[in-house]
Every structure is written in structure tokens, then in C-alpha cells.
């Protein structure tokens, strides 16, 4: 049969891909029927709540749960003693320790015990009866302070082999990337600037708090319902923590109310399973917003030194950055991605980054949209902007002059294939936004950003129903419209209308392993597997048609939703449509399905350029976003509305990070703003419309040219807003967030 199975991109005319169809989960979500994490109940269900450390750092000398256990209505209490220790896997051991503290509480909000009871009121009363004897220890929450000699130490002996002797035990890893000779490059510059930038930790801020419902029986089988970006990850992690076989734990992903990386690990799920195991009852857990902010995973805070040399015509001669990220109380801040991505948009002869992973008494960081990249881009793009403006050069022209393109040796090592940075910069330069006049106290900022994207384990099963419609089962929670995209790609490949395909997210018992919905991978990797599943189904359908016609299989081709006799048989039989083949499936060998299991590699990297106008109130330091335009390469926009949505959502999260969002710790190490009142995410009235320009530079590694789009959009805005505000204020801002007191203080220091 004449199918091209190569995964390589080919130019083609699309019929469904690229249109703006309605999403399959739309009606459920606008009518309140869609079921999210907290919307599930079970007969005989108990409610569990968590007791959390009121100290930033404390040794847990003892926990007395007897009074709580004796309270009528309480069915079970768990502490760390209810979990087996994990000795052979530091990664999972840290996750367990984060879900339930062991010897020490490492941050304000760290879980120390949990109670399952027959009502919320009883569970909460029981928490007050648990007596924890703490020995309060000195704490540290700032990344630079944690690196100093004599800083309070969280763990001893966790530093890996890359950390030089003599550093604080809080420094756990060192990364170095780059090439060339920095000093030699700097010597050729007409100006070298050295700046230090700081960013505060921000939270993904998904509106749905974590929630789960666990049910485990004495036979060791368990079911778990939860809101997560990856239920296969939840299964594997919980099985490891609970000492279960993965096959005995079935996890069903609820609709997910936002994640942005924050739901790529577990917090409640092992605790709910342990309580269910102990009580033999279903156990439901739902976090409050304050628990979400205190005890789930914000991203890292950072402190970054940048040294860049530039000639007066805008050529960067050398670029160096040293990045210090604290990722909370455990190893794993995303400093390596910050270090790899910091200078990725530029073609540099001499470039070097050094990254330090540091622990502090803060919650264990979790991934947040392009983890580690936005703060690095903020520092680098601020310094480049300052140099360009210092020479009186057009900041877009300077970026174009130094832009990475096909054949550029990336700052993190490899040579770029076809990439879209230049296209985004040219689109920005040609856009009316760039030429629009600015008023008094207004400024315009631009910045570039980069993200890797990746693939990962993926399974898709595509079934042809007896009436000739199509169902697609995939294993990745749909966080921004991916079921629509999968249905579109299946319809495109099969040559049938979008409306005849329905995609569902299957539980962990129904498909093989699937990587988490992260790394902007779903439209790329699951899309690829969907296309391959459809191709497998087409092959089978061509075979069935060949049987009916009594000709050879390879004399049949698939076109426009039907099998056609090809070659010398062309025209000898009328085409058999998908519907007609489905109708005789039982007579030709049984049900028809296609499936594809793979670990697609080769996701294309992606670039964006953002442009923003702001106005600064010179008397109060308040910043208003006046106009915002995103230029980003999407490879191929499968559903343009959702591509635009990713651009807009990422930009606005970045605006929040730049202006008002921050983790505020008191001197006591306690989080001061554990609520949406003072953790200030942007509201509708803070913003203008967010304009978008989609560039399509096909990814050669995907049959339709798709690149991940979800993460890159949060990389440039911190810097773009900072460059804009700095121009409007007439003074350079080097710390995020640029909250009004900071801007006013900078204005007064002019």
C-alpha cells in the first residue's frame, strides 16, 4: 500500500489541521458538568486533612497522635512511620519526604501528619489534637544567604561530584556550559557591562487546588482519581512509595484545572493511599489555597550575574552568566535549564554559563512552564537591552544581528537545525506595534526567548466503530484543548470530518506508559502517535478493501476517507469509504483499530519575541500594560485558537511574574502571602488584549511540522516588561517583581 510512514515533515495541503473547530469538552465545561479533581465522591468516603509544620526548619522529636485517633469519627492517622523508607532511589525518597516529613520539617507548611475522618469538621478538630514536639532550627530562605559560609544547613552530604570543595552544604550541584574564550571576547568589546539581577519565586497559580480520591482494599488493589498532568507518573511514583506493583494501581485523571508544570509530581496522592490502606475506606483529600501556596511547588527564585561585551555596532563579543537558583528544600532547581537556555537565542563565539543548585527552607520547587528559562532570559535580555540602548542602537536590530539561525552552534552545545527566531524578529520589526508612537512616561520593551520542548513515551489507540466513526484513546491529561487537536490530526489523516472523531483520555489500565503532559510535548508527541495510529488503521482498512475486491493489498491506496484501487486496478472498483469498510469489519477479520507506541524524539526547539508598551506613574511607581504582542514560531498551528491561547496565557503569567507575583517570607521563615489576596496574579482589568502573530517554520521531526508551543511564551515577558518599564521610568530595574514600591524607589534614586 502506498503510505509514507516517515515521520519527517512534508509540505501538504491541510483540510482539518489549521482550522478553528469546537473542542469536544466545551459543552461540559460551560455547563458545569465537567468533573475536576474535587468533584468526585465515593460511597463510604472519608475526608482527610493534613497537619503542617508551623516552622521553617525544625527537628521533629516526636508526634503523639493518640488523642486524635481517639476522637469519635476519626478512622485513621498517618505519619511518616506509616511509609516504608526508600533507600535506593533519592529522587523518589525526596518526593516521599516532601509528601510527609521525616526527621525534620524543612519549610513552613511541610506535611507532618494526616487524619481521615467521617467529616471535614472532625478531621480538622483531630488535627488540633496531634501533639508534635519540634526542636526549632535556624532557617534560610534566600538563595545568596544559603550559599554563605555558616548558613543554616538543610542536609549534609547531598552535594554531587560537580560541586567544588569548601562550598556551603546547601550547594548541591554545579553546571557549566559554553564555548570559546570569554576574556578574549570581552577584550574586543567597546563596552562591557556587569549586572546582578534577582527574581522572586512565583507559583504556577492554577485555579484548581490539588485533589484526589483514593481507594485501596485489603487485597492490595487500588484506584486513584486525581487532577494531574500525568496519571502514569502518579501511578509509578505512588506505587514506588507504597511498595505496590504498578499494575495494581489504576489511576484515572480528572479534568485538570490548570497545571503549568505544578502538577507534574505528587503531594497528596501517596498520603490518601496510605490512609485508604489503613482504613479500608475511600479517602478524599482537597487542598486549600493556602496549602497550595505553602506546600506545593513554586518555581525557583534566582540571583544572576551577567557580563556581556558588545561592539558599538551591536556585535556581542562575549557573554557570561552565573546563575544561582534555590529550588526549595530538595535538590533539583531548574538551574541547568536556565544555564542552557540563557544565551540560546544568540550566535556567540564566546559564551559561558555557570549554574548553582541551592537548597533553602522553602517548599520543594516543581516545574513551571519552561522551567528555569524565564529568569535567565530576564537577566540576559535586560543586559543586552541596556547595551543596545547605551550605543543608541535599535534593540530589535541588535538582536537580529546576533540571532541564532540554522547552523548556529547553540550556547548549550549542539548546532541548530531550521529555527524560527529570525522570523519572529523580522515579524516584530515589520509589525505596526513597533512603529506606533509612545506618550510621556511610556516605554517599549522587546525580548527574545527560547525553549527546548521534548517528546517522551506515548501511546495512542484509535478504534473504528461499527458505524464508521472513530475514537482515539490517549494517555495525556488535556490541559489546554489537546483532545480537539488529536481529533483534528486523526480526522486529517483519515480524511474524514473532525466531528466524526472523539478523543478521550484513558486511565492507566487502558494504555501503556505515557510521559507527563509537560515539555510542550503533547501536540508534538501524542499528535505524532495519533497520526501513526491513523496510518495503521488505514493500512488495515486498505487490506480489508483489498480482500473485498480480491486484489493485492499493496494495490490499494487511501484517499479522502476511502480506500481506492490503485495502479493497474485503478477504476476497476468503486472506492470503499471508511464507513463501508467498518460495516463489513466483522466479515473481513473483525474489529479495526490502529495503535502506536513510541518514544518520539526530535521535538523542535522554539523561539519567541515579545513586544510590550508600558506606562509608569511617576508619582506612585504603578505600571500599566498598554499594549502587548507575541511573535512565536509554532511549527504548524494545529488549532490556531489554542496556539494563540498558549501565547496569551504564557505572556500574562510572565507579566504577573514581572510586576506583582512573589513569595514573601518573613524573618521567621513563614510565608506571608499564602492566598490569592496577596499572591497577586493578574486580573482582567490589569490587561489589554494580547495580540499574537503565529509564525510557522515547520519542525522537520514531525509529519505535520508541529513544534511544542506551550512553554516558550513565558520566557520573554519578564525581560520584555522590564525593558519597557526601564525605558518608561528612565532607570534600569534589576529586581523582580517590579512592584510599585520598587519602581518608585528606583525613580527616586535617579
Amino acid at each position, binding site marked *: 500500500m502506498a503510505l509514507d510512514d516517515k515521520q519527517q515533515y512534508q509540505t501538504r495541503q491541510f483540510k482539518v489541521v489549521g482550522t*478553528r473547530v*469546537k*473542542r469536544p*469538552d*466545551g*459543552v461540559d*465545561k*460551560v*455547563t*458545569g*458538568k*465537567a*468533573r*475536576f479533581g*474535587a*468533584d468526585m*465522591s465515593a460511597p463510604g468516603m472519608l475526608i482527610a486533612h493534613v497537619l503542617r509544620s508551623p516552622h521553617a526548619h525544625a527537628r521533629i522529636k516526636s508526634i503523639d497522635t493518640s488523642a486524635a485517633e481517639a476522637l469519635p469519627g476519626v478512622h485513621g492517622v498517618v505519619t511518616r512511620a506509616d511509609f516504608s523508607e526508600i533507600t535506593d532511589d533519592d529522587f523518589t525518597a525526596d518526593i516521599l519526604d516532601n509528601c510527609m516529613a521525616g526527621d525534620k520539617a524543612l519549610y513552613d507548611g511541610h506535611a507532618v501528619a494526616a487524619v481521615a475522618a467521617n467529616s471535614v*469538621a472532625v478531621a480538622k478538630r483531630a488535627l488540633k489534637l496531634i501533639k508534635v514536639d519540634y526542636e526549632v532550627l535556624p532557617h534560610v530562605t534566600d538563595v545568596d544567604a544559603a550559599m554563605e559560609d555558616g548558613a543554616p544547613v538543610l542536609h549534609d552530604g547531598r552535594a554531587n561530584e560537580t560541586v567544588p570543595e569548601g562550598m556551603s552544604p546547601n550547594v548541591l550541584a554545579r553546571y557549566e556550559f559554553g564555548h570559546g574564550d570569554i576574556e578574549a571576547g570581552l577584550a574586543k568589546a567597546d563596552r562591557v557591562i556587569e549586572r546582578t539581577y534577582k527574581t522572586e519565586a512565583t507559583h*504556577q*497559580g*492554577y*485555579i*484548581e*487546588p490539588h485533589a484526589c480520591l483514593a481507594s485501596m482494599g485489603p487485597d492490595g488493589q487500588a484506584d486513584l482519581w486525581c487532577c494531574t498532568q500525568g496519571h502514569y507518573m502518579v501511578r509509578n511514583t505512588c506505587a514506588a512509595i507504597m511498595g505496590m506493583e504498578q499494575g495494581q494501581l489504576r489511576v484515572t485523571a480528572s*479534568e*485538570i*484545572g*490548570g*497545571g*503549568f508544570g505544578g502538577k507534574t509530581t505528587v503531594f497528596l496522592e501517596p498520603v490518601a493511599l496510605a490512609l485508604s490502606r489503613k482504613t479500608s475506606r475511600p479517602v478524599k483529600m*482537597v487542598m*486549600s*489555597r493556602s496549602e497550595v501556596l505553602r506546600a506545593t511547588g513554586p518555581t525557583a527564585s534566582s540571583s544572576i550575574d551577567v557580563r556581556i561585551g558588545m561592539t558599538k555596532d551591536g556585535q556581542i563579543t562575549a557573554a557570561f552568566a552565573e546563575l544561582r537558583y534555590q529550588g526549595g528544600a530538595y535538590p533539583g532547581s531548574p538551574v541547568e535549564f536556565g544555564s542552557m537556555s540563557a544565551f540560546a537565542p544568540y550566535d556567540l563565539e564566546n559564551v559561558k554559563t555557570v549554574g548553582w543548585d541551592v537548597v533553602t527552607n522553602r517548599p520543594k520547587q516543581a516545574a513551571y512552564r519552561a522551567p528555569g528559562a524565564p529568569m535567565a532570559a530576564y537577566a540576559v535580555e535586560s543586559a543586552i537591552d541596556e547595551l543596545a540602548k547605551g550605543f543608541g542602537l535599535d534593540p530589535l536590530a541588535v538582536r537580529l544581528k546576533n540571532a541564532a539561525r540554522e547552523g548556529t552552534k547553540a550556547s548549550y552545545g549542539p548546532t541548530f537545525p531550521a529555527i524560527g527566531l529570525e522570523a519572529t524578529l523580522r515579524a516584530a520589526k515589520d509589525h505596526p506595534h513597533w512603529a506606533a508612537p509612545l506618550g510621556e512616561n511610556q516605554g517599549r520593551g522587546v525580548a527574545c526567548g527560547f525553549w527546548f520542548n521534548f517528546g517522551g513515551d506515548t501511546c495512542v489507540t484509535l478504534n473504528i466503530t461499527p458505524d464508521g466513526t472513530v475514537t482515539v484513546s490517549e494517555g495525556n491529561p488535556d*490541559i*489546554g*484543548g489537546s483532545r480537539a487537536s488529536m481529533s483534528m490530526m486523526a480526522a486529517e489523516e483519515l480524511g474524514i470530518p473532525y466531528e466524526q472523531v472523539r478523543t478521550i483520555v484513558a486511565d492507566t489500565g487502558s494504555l501503556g506508559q505515557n510521559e507527563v503532559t509537560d515539555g510542550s510535548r503533547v501536540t508534538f508527541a501524542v499528535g505524532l502517535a495519533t497520526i501513526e495510529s491513523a496510518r495503521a488503521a488505514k493500512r488495515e482498512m486498505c487490506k480489508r478493501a483489498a480482500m473485498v475486491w480480491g486484489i493485492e493489498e499493496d494495490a490499494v491506496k487511501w484517499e479522502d476517507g476511502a480506500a481506492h484501487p490503485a495502479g493497474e486496478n485503478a477504476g476497476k472498483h468503486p472506492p470503499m469509504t471508511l464507513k463501508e469498510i467498518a460495516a463489513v469489519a466483522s466479515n473481513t477479520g473483525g474489529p479495526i483499530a490502529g495503535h502506536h507506541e513510541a518514544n518520539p524524539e526530535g521535538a523542535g526547539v522554539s523561539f519567541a519575541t515579545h513586544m510590550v508598551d508600558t506606562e509608569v506613574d511617576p508619582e506612585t511607581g504603578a505600571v500599566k500594560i498598554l499594549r502587548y504582542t507575541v511573535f512565536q514560531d509554532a511549527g504548524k498551528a494545529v*488549532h490556531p*485558537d*489554542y496556539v*494563540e*491561547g498558549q501565547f*496569551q*496565557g504564557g*505572556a*500574562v*503569567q510572565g507579566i504577573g511574574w514581572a510586576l506583582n507575583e512573589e513569595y514573601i517570607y518573613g524573618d521567621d521563615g513563614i510565608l506571608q502571602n499564602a*492566598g*490569592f*489576596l496577596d499572591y497577586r*496574579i*493578574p*486580573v*482582567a*482589568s490589569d*490587561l489589554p*488584549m*494580547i495580540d499574537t502573530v503565529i509564525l510557522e517554520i515547520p519542525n522537520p521531526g514531525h509529519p505535520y511540522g508541529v513544534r511544542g508551543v506551550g512553554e516558550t511564551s513565558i520566557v520573554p515577558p519578564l525581560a520584555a516588561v522590564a525593558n519597557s518599564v526601564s525605558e518608561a521610568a528612565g532607570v534600569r530595574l534589576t529586581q523582580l517583581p517590579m512592584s510599585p514600591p520598587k519602581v518608585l524607589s528606583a525613580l527616586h534614586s535617579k
Partner: protein
Amino acid sequence: MSKIHITTSVNGDPTEFLCEADETLLDALRDRLGMTGAKEGCGTGDCGACSVTVDGRLVCSCLMLGAEAEGREIGTIEGMAEGDQLHPLQRKFIEHAALQCGICTPGLLVAAKSLLEKHPDPTEEEARYWLAGNLCRCTGYDKIIRAVMDAAQEMREAS
């Protein structure tokens, strides 16, 4: 602790429930009545995901006791469509892709409906301020505002 018996109306249906004195209307709707369309995003009136109307007035159901519902008329997202006819706002939210994850959508729709009942021809700025108490983390609000403005226009033309 004895529960309080409440007689009320939810989306026009006569409804009774028992609740604790300190239980919020949101918890009563979700846990007593199984109406999980209103969501808890914060529990402190900062996110609007639990928006409902009480005697026609937009409120956060997390900031009201269930006991206060006695004799009131409660309106929730579950009552927004009429049978199989989606409200114009619901249709426009789907058409404009004004939702990504959808957790804030019920609250935004209830709030937007209340806006258009009071201000059938809002400016973009009025819509943005009216909806400022409804947090959305996915969309950056752009497509939400477009959907609301488009629905407003359609509803004006239809009336």
C-alpha cells in the same frame, strides 16, 4: 451539633438541604446537593470560581453560609442553559476558545451573565472590571473578554 434545615430554590427548583451552621453555601451546593459546577479555587472570595447569584445578585458562594440561603433564590452554572439550548455566553465561550482548562469557566459565565443583565452594552473596560474578581490563569483573559463582548452584541441584536 444539630444540622439546620434549609428550604430554598436552586435554579428555580424547590430544594431542601441540611447543613452545619458554619458550612458555606458552596460546600452545601457541592457536598449536600451534588452540584459541583461551582468550584472552590480559594475559599476566601479572591478567585470567583464559586460565583452564584442569590436573589439575582452575584456573590461568591464561599463567602456565604448555607444557612443564609433560607428562602432565597440561588442561581448556579447548572441553571444557565435552558434544556439543550446553551446561553449565548456559553456558546460564545466555546466559539472563541475562551477556556483552556475550564476550572474558572463556570464562575466567569455566571459573573458575565450578571454583567450583561445589568449592563447589556458594556465597554471592554467595564467588562474587565466587572470580571476582575474571576481569576483565570490559562487564557490571559483575551479570548474571555472577546467572547463576552460578542455575546453581549448578539444578545442586544436578538432583543
